[in-house]
């Protein structure tokens, strides 16, 4: 799997530096699950963090090195155990499964309109909300714009809009200038994770119900 659409470097740096908020980190970690290219960039950005830590002038500390007896009382971290994952195809990436369920079918979907469901996962301390959308093949979302930045990751299926075509693992980075009308392709249901801070801005009256439900 090689996603074609990636978050910009500034998002990957923010993730490595620890400055992205929880919802933003969630969508980026989920993309990284699919994308070795971006994992390499994050690894380099973490190495920059290592350099910056080494570069800091040491400050005086009132700490003593803990003695061996104290250290020996700590539980040593075992090697990460392999979880017994099912092999079905209807799974979510692990970072995401922790916020809902491992299986797509077990998610408590709320219907917005015919062929369109959503579920809210979290709103973090910066007010960024992470939501999953589920769209029936051939259905579309009403045309809309965004007042802030939005990151959308395709988990299953694919959609296309004015910006391009997005398949599994692709991350769409939208800013306030983009107005789009995503249409799910016929590959099967399209499930996508979207993170944004501001409510979407509808460009027509068609989606009033959509807007009412979301805010």
């Amino acid at each position, binding site marked *: *799997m090689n996603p074609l659409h990636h978050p*910009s*470097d*500034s998002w*990957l*740096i*923010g993730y490595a*530096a*620890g*400055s*992205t*908020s*929880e919802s933003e980190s*969630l969508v980026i*970690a*989920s993309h990284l*699950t*699919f994308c*070795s*290219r971006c*994992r*390499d*960039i994050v*690894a*380099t950005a*973490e*190495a*920059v*963090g*290592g350099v*910056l*830590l*080494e*570069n*800091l*002038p*040491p*400050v005086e*500390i*009132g*700490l003593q090195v*803990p003695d*061996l007896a104290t*250290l*020996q009382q*700590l*539980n040593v971290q075992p*090697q*990460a155990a*392999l979880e017994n*994952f099912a092999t079905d195809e209807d*799974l979510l*990436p*692990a*970072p*995401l499964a*922790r916020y809902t369920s491992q299986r797509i079918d077990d998610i408590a979907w709320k219907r917005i309109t015919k062929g369109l469901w959503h579920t809210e996962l979290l709103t*973090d*301390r910066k007010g960024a909300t992470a939501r999953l959308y589920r769209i029936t093949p051939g259905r579309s979302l009403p045309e809309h714009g965004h007042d*802030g930045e939005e990151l959308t990751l395709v988990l299953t299926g694919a959609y296309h809009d004015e910006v391009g075509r997005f398949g599994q693992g692709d991350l769409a980075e939208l800013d306030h200038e983009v107005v789009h009308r995503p249409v799910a392709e016929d590959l099967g249901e399209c499930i996508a994770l979207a993170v944004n801070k501001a409510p979407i801005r509808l460009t027509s009256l068609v989606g009033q119900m959509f807007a009412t439900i979301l805010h």
Partner: protein
Amino acid sequence: MSTDLACVAPPANVLSVLFSHPLTDANAFKYGSRSKVTGDNNPDVQSPDMAGLIGAVAANADHEAFATLFSHYAPRLKSFLMREAGSEAAEEIAQEAMLSVWRKASLFDPTKASAGTWIFTIARNLRIDRLRRESRPEVDMTDPFFDQDKPTPDQNTLVKEQQKIIQEAVNGLPDDQAEVIRRAYYEEQSHSEISDILNIPLGTVKSRLRLAMGRVRQAAETLQ
């Protein structure tokens, strides 16, 4: 060739250089092969070898090795954490980070990251957890979706060289790029916060970060 390997038994790191494959640009930094095989016989005599000390903690619960790591990193971790927390809280979290180094030493992989990089990620995660009180979603390598990395050749020396080159690249960044990098890592500011604080367009912040990262990656790729 394979049947004779056991008799000839060249060091594994020489083998990995001989058998390294051409690499894509995207993976070149992480998996790049070395051009100088001789480097393998002359490991960097940087002293003390922090990665080796973490290895000694993992293998032998070596308290002396831990004490050396502690006296090097604890004051720097406090310095790092004091940008977000008061002196006392910074010390507490620095202490906790060092206890994690002891507990998790067996999870440290010197072929993937330098000691400083690994300890940075521990402190970063503690900062998010303790100061921000948020979770940090991370990739799970046991995830069935996980697009596996290719097996890596021996990279101990490579990681050290990379760290040195990345250090030079970071220290040589132009002021405007260095500032956004400092704010992202030390002050934990997002690109939109940097844009607000410095009163410059978001696109400018993003392009400065991209340029800074481009320089670092380009420098790191010269190692191949």
